[in-house]
């Protein structure tokens, strides 16, 4: 019975993947892709990975979807010829086909090999969980055992925002806020905003004991910001470059500082003192949540200004 569900999910997944890549209309393509994100989060549930399911729904389907749709609206003006799928005369088609089948064959062979992992890393996680300061293993891995990865990953996020800033049109003229002039929307979102904020903080708090954490919370926060922006509430803060940048690095700064203090005490980088590990992790996560929310929101905001074309840019 369970396998039937799994197989159905896989079929839907692959079907949606095919559709999202090979539909004629780009709009549908994006829609199928968002749908695929939702199905994926079901798949993650089936894989006993609720954390990833949350993240996939919030980040993968949510934020990526918003960004894609927003981009789509601005790409309308481009010369868009629908793809001709069976270009049998094009070497590119055959190259793609060859690579695709090659990848499937190679991976399929590799996956079908029976496995017996030599190192029992999962046991090591549960053995050391008590010392990590949190009880949820994934948070322990992300913010303690492998916190160095997370540190670099936050840097990656800041970088993405920075590229968006680089391509911003000009420093003087912030983009006009094209919000929806709908009264009902306005009213409802005012109601929703605190609730979304609350959910975000709850996800952050829950992260130390159960699925949740900074990234999911940050993504939810970002969606709150985006809604905030869409109804035309105050976003002047986001137009000021200094606030933008300082908001991005807030989390990273806390992370680096907390990580660097042990160096002065003769400990390796990113070591938390045993007694305060939980508090420190929560502190870092709080910083990260705010920064991630802010970064994802600025990506949305800045990518809008990347699309506008001004006369002074003509070469």
């Amino acid at each position, binding site marked *: 019975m369970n396998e039937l569900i799994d197989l159905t999910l896989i079929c839907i997944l692959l079907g949606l993947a095919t559709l999202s890549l090979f539909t004629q*209309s780009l709009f549908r393509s994006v829609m199928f892709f968002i749908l695929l994100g939702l199905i994926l989060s079901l798949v993650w549930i089936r894989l006993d990975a609720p954390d990833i399911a949350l993240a996939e729904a919030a980040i993968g389907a949510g934020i990526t979807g918003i960004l894609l749709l927003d981009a789509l609206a601005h790409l309308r003006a481009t010369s*868009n010829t629908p793809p001709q799928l069976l270009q049998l005369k094009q070497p590119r088609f055959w190259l793609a086909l060859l690579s695709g089948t090659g990848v499937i064959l190679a991976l399929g062979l590799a996956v079908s090999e029976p496995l017996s992992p030599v190192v029992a890393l999962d046991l090591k996680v549960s053995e050391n969980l008590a010392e990590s300061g949190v009880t949820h293993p994934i948070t322990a891995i992300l913010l303690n055992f492998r916190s160095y990865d997370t540190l670099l990953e936050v840097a990656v996020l800041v970088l993405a925002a920075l590229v968006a800033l680089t391509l911003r049109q000009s420093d003087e003229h912030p983009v006009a806020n094209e919000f929806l002039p709908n009264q009902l929307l306005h009213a409802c979102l005012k109601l929703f905003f605190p609730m979304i904020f609350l959910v975000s903080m709850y996800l952050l708090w829950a992260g130390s004991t159960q699925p949740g954490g900074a990234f999911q919370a940050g993504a939810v926060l970002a969606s709150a910001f985006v809604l905030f922006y869409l109804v035309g509430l105050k976003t002047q803060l986001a137009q000021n470059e200094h606030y933008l940048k300082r908001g991005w690095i807030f989390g990273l700064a806390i992370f680096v500082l907390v990580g660097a203090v042990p160096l002065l005490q003769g400990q390796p980088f990113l070591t938390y003192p045993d007694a305060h590990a939980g508090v420190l992790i929560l502190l870092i996560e709080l910083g990260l949540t705010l920064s991630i929310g802010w970064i994802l929101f600025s990506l949305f905001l800045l990518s809008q200004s990347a699309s506008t074309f001004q006369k002074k840019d003509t070469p």
Partner: protein
Amino acid sequence: MNLLVILQSFLLISGALMFCIGSLGLIRFPDTYTRIHALTKADNLGLGLIVLALILNIESVALALKLLLIWGLVMIASALSGHLVAWEADEQCIPLCQPGETEPHLESENE
């Protein structure tokens, strides 16, 4: 096989049925406005029935309240989005369809 289980099953099945009807409406109805109608109404009711069915099975009041909260939020959200879609369709002057007439599918993005 007590009464509770029978009630639960009934609620679940009718909830699922509601979803099916809503989806059928989405496919069969001729224009944007009627489709929204099918989607939002049926979904709210269907979700409500399912939430009710689940509440019957729960001991903790907090959890039950959470489920109800979800239902409430979804209702507000679907009402709002239904309103927005209809409003936007109206802004774009998409006409209502007369019975028997079918709207050209929403293919505006297909150049």
